[in-house]
């Protein structure tokens, strides 16, 4: 009985709905890497030495920093309803 309760709690905790580039995505981790967020936005994104995506987030966890910018290698704690935007900000 207790084990079942634990499992269902686990499953529930692992399905976090966030918004990436205006669309709902289901995330099953507590923390996301910069690259994982990019893939959520662009399934076929490729990375090399000079690729830079602009990853911004808001409505996040941290009371100090609920909004911010991620660069390559960064991670961020995921929270339900968090909003991410990812584009290649290279047009003028």
């Amino acid at each position, binding site marked *: 009985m207790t084990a079942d309760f634990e499992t269902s709690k686990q499953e529930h905790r692992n399905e976090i709905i966030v918004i990436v*580039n*205006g*669309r709902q995505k289901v995330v099953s981790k507590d923390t996301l890497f910069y690259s994982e967020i990019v893939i959520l*936005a*662009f399934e*076929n*994104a*490729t990375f*090399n*030495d*000079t*690729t*830079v*995506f*602009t990853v*911004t*987030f*808001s*409505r996040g966890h941290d009371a100090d920093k609920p*909004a*911010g*910018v991620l*660069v*390559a290698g960064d991670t961020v704690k995921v929270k339900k309803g968090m*909003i991410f*935007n990812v*584009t*290649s*900000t*290279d*047009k*003028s």
Partner: protein
Amino acid sequence: MSRQLINLSPDLKRLSDEGYDIEIKAGFLLVHSVPYLNANQELCSGTLVSTLSLAGDITTVPSDHVVHFIGEYPHQKGGGEITQIKHANETKSISEGTVINFSFSNKPAGGYANYHAKMTRYIDIITAEAESAFPLSRVTAKSFKPIEGKAEHSVFQYLDSSSSRGGFQASSQKLVGLKVGIIGLGGTGSYILDLIAKTPIAEIHLFDDDHFLQHNAFRSPGAASLYDLKAQLIKVDYYQKAYSKLHKNIFAHPLKVTESNAAEMAPLDFVFICVDSASSRQFLVRKLEEMQISFIDVGMGIVSVNDMLIGQVRTTISTASTRDSAIKSIPLSDTENDNEYATNIQICELNALNACMAVMKWKKQYGFYQDLENEICSIYELNTNLIVNLNQ
């Protein structure tokens, strides 16, 4: 010289800021464009003339209460001459090229404290009659006539009376002498030009080898004419011509910046990189680092979701102490994601926003605006309406 006298004397500066058409000529103070009624009740325009008491370069308390007038005798509405100011009717020359027709006297107890008080007193008495006779017209001596920039060191074709009126001449001075480059005169680059052309920087250098075509008109400040579009000018020539109406020192470089011509950037103090191609950006960033020139790189990314646009507008600054951090936020390679940037989408407001953010950050480098955040990169996010900063 006379502009300096006006700027240093609070009473003269106030007259100028309030829009009166003043001139200093041969030591006299002239106020032109004073509306009045002549003997036939016609609306005319005259000039009041006063001697100036000076102590070195600024005015002191007026030594007398008399003014001279160039024009016909001012009348009351529906009546005779304005007698309360009557003094002397004598056409005479008071200095070379200045012939007056009348002299007026209206002496307040204690005299006039300054030239603003003195001149506005006479203006009010004379103009009140004209204003009353022509209630539907804009009858005022505050004509706000454009003042040509005669000062030998002014970079503007006409005086920046905005800084004077706003009282922030000291801040504007911080930008004097700078030589600034804009590489890429697309949407954002052209809006940056629109903004910096209004600052007293010494020189503006434009770099781009593209032509100004019809679709460019929809992401460009101001309004191009059909005639302009037919000319198919090179962008830098089109913009140099348009903004030379305001700023005297705009230089067009109709080229794509490469290793062979990069030396043309050498005299610059600061550069705005406003290009689209990754290879251009990559080259420029490395080259400017090598040349030790500070720069701001701008860029936006727009994507479509459910037929609506979302995206980000980015402004990154790179200075001597922030080279490595800045690079982390600058896209240097072309990506194959679905960046929708159709040239027929009118998003010039995003170009303008990017330009505004870039110019504000640039001004912060010189202490024009305060910068407590010292962010290296700032990004405006469309669908959340947030500006997020990257500090490291």
